[in-house]
């Protein structure tokens, strides 16, 4: 893999940003007592790299034409997107405490009609990559420089529509598209490999005509380098296959399928924050 042009200071600051966002995820989910913990924590390093280093966007002008687009295909990881949007300034951080509540603009799954910075509605798995393709085709028609980033889960790859979309992205040579696959190896019913094996993920995308970059999805340097490399690929879309840990950062959440859709309890909150190097002063 090519080395990133980014200096170690930037990497450190992105790592710290990701740590803060993990704290926000844990606090937000604890407050709502509802939502998806494991998959939000596994994806947050990539989300942090995108929103605070790679993507061109203007939080004060969410519809700015020159922006890059982000599609959260694994919509249940909405908390990961919401904490990044709040941190970036799309809406006040206090709004996070209203996650999933009646009257909140933060729906259980991303809703483009309600949340500034959310591009499309996702949540029903398998549909996001198709929408990312459509965005990429539309932007290309307009001669736009903007890029499209789509974050998928590995369990989500069981949906046939993902492969229809993978085929189409390869066919239409969508080099303004980059898919990040959060391979955390767990889904609701247990191990992805046991429920319905999706591996070899990298080979599958490669077979559909994608450039594939296999990385450790928690290595910030590798994430940034992969995203930089993706932007240079011509004539085909890029898939970053990111090996991650579900629940990453909170030791007792890690690698547990049971934390897929369970929020931290009152007892778990201080321990979780401690794991993340944060004092609990609630």
């Amino acid at each position, binding site marked *: 893999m090519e080395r990133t042009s980014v200096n170690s200071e930037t990497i450190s600051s992105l790592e710290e940003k990701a740590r803060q966002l993990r704290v926000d995820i844990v606090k937000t989910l604890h407050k709502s007592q509802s939502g998806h913990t494991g998959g939000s924590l596994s994806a947050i390093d990539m989300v942090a790299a995108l929103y605070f280093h790679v993507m061109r966007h203007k939080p004060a002008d969410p519809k700015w034409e020159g922006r890059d*687009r982000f*599609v959260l295909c694994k919509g249940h990881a909405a908390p990961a997107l919401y904490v990044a949007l709040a941190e970036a300034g799309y809406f006040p951080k206090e709004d996070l405490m209203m996650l999933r509540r009646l009257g909140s603009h933060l729906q259980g799954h991303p*809703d*483009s*009609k309600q949340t500034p910075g959310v*591009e*499309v*509605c996702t*949540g*029903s798995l*398998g*549909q*996001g*990559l*198709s*929408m*990312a*393709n*459509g*965005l*990429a*085709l*539309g*932007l290309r*028609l*307009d001669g736009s420089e903007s890029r499209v980033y789509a974050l998928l889960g590995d369990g989500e790859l069981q949906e*046939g*529509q993902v492969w*229809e*979309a993978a*085929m*189409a992205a390869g*066919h*239409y040579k969508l080099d303004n598209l980059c898919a990040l696959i959060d391979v955390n190896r767990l889904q609701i019913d247990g191990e992805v490999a046991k429920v319905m094996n999706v591996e070899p993920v990298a080979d599958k995308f490669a077979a559909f005509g994608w450039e594939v970059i296999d990385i450790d999805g928690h290595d910030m340097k590798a994430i940034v380098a992969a995203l930089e490399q993706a932007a240079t690929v011509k004539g085909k879309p890029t898939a970053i296959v990111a090996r991650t840990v579900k629940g990453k950062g909170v030791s007792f959440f890690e690698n547990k399928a049971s934390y897929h859709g369970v929020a931290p309890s009152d007892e778990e909150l201080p321990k979780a924050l401690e794991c993340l190097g944060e004092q609990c002063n609630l």
Partner: protein
Amino acid sequence: MSTMIATRDAYGQTLAELGEENAAVVVLDADLSGSTKTSVFAKKFPERFFNMGIAEANMVGTAAGLAAAGKIPFLSTFAIFAAGRGWEQIRQSLAYPKANVKVVATHGGITVGEDGGSHQSVEDIAIMRAIPNMTVIVPADGPETAKAIRAAAAYKGPVYVRLGRNKVPTVTVEDAPFEIGKGTQLADGNDLTFVTTGLMTAQALAAAKLLATEGISARVVHLATIKPLDGEILLKAARETGAIVTAEEHSVVGGLGGAVAEYLSENCPVPLRRIGINDRFGLSGKAEELIKYFGLMPADLAEAGREIVAKKRG
């Protein structure tokens, strides 16, 4: 009633015109562009036409993405595949975000013919109508299709337009304006009203003529838009004629008949009969044979008209 044109042909022609007028119009198809007539657009604007292959779910999602990028996507395939295979994608990726996508489904109903029940969509109006934010349009003829497609392009939001395969007579008034959500009275009458959509409007006009020879005066109200429903024209028909017969090339469950029954039973209950496919699948056969077999002929409508007038007079 002189000109005969297939609604899908009118669609292809209008789409090509719209492509000329508006650079934001893009078109997607799933390997049926010759049949859906999107090929007319594809030939003129190859860079704005995307053949998505035999993959309807992805086609719907791609259209949603194109809409999010500011385009006005029209996507087409047969009604059974658009509304059937694409249902949840249409719900989640199009209707939920109010995406500006037009689903123009051809080969609706039983008149697809010989391909049989697997290819005959008799449920699409019902399932599209059930989705919030969705507009559902079933034009009666070629000229109305042209106007409906233009209206759909001008409307901001998801629209489902159901078209047919075969040539149908022109029954609407060619220079009448088309407005989404507005019904049209095509024949006046006092004894009953036929409320119809799609190609059944022509059948109802013929049935009204049959009844006129017997001294029964039948009104014909054509509803090109099934959702939103034109309550005003229905209420007027129910109050003034006191009996309703709906007719559609679709299941009697949940389509036009269902919509009219829901509305009138709450607002002005009158005797009502629904003509359509009686909760069963289609069959192979020639279109005209199937129309006869499933009881969608003018004589069938006239018989329903006689019965309901008798019921009304009690």
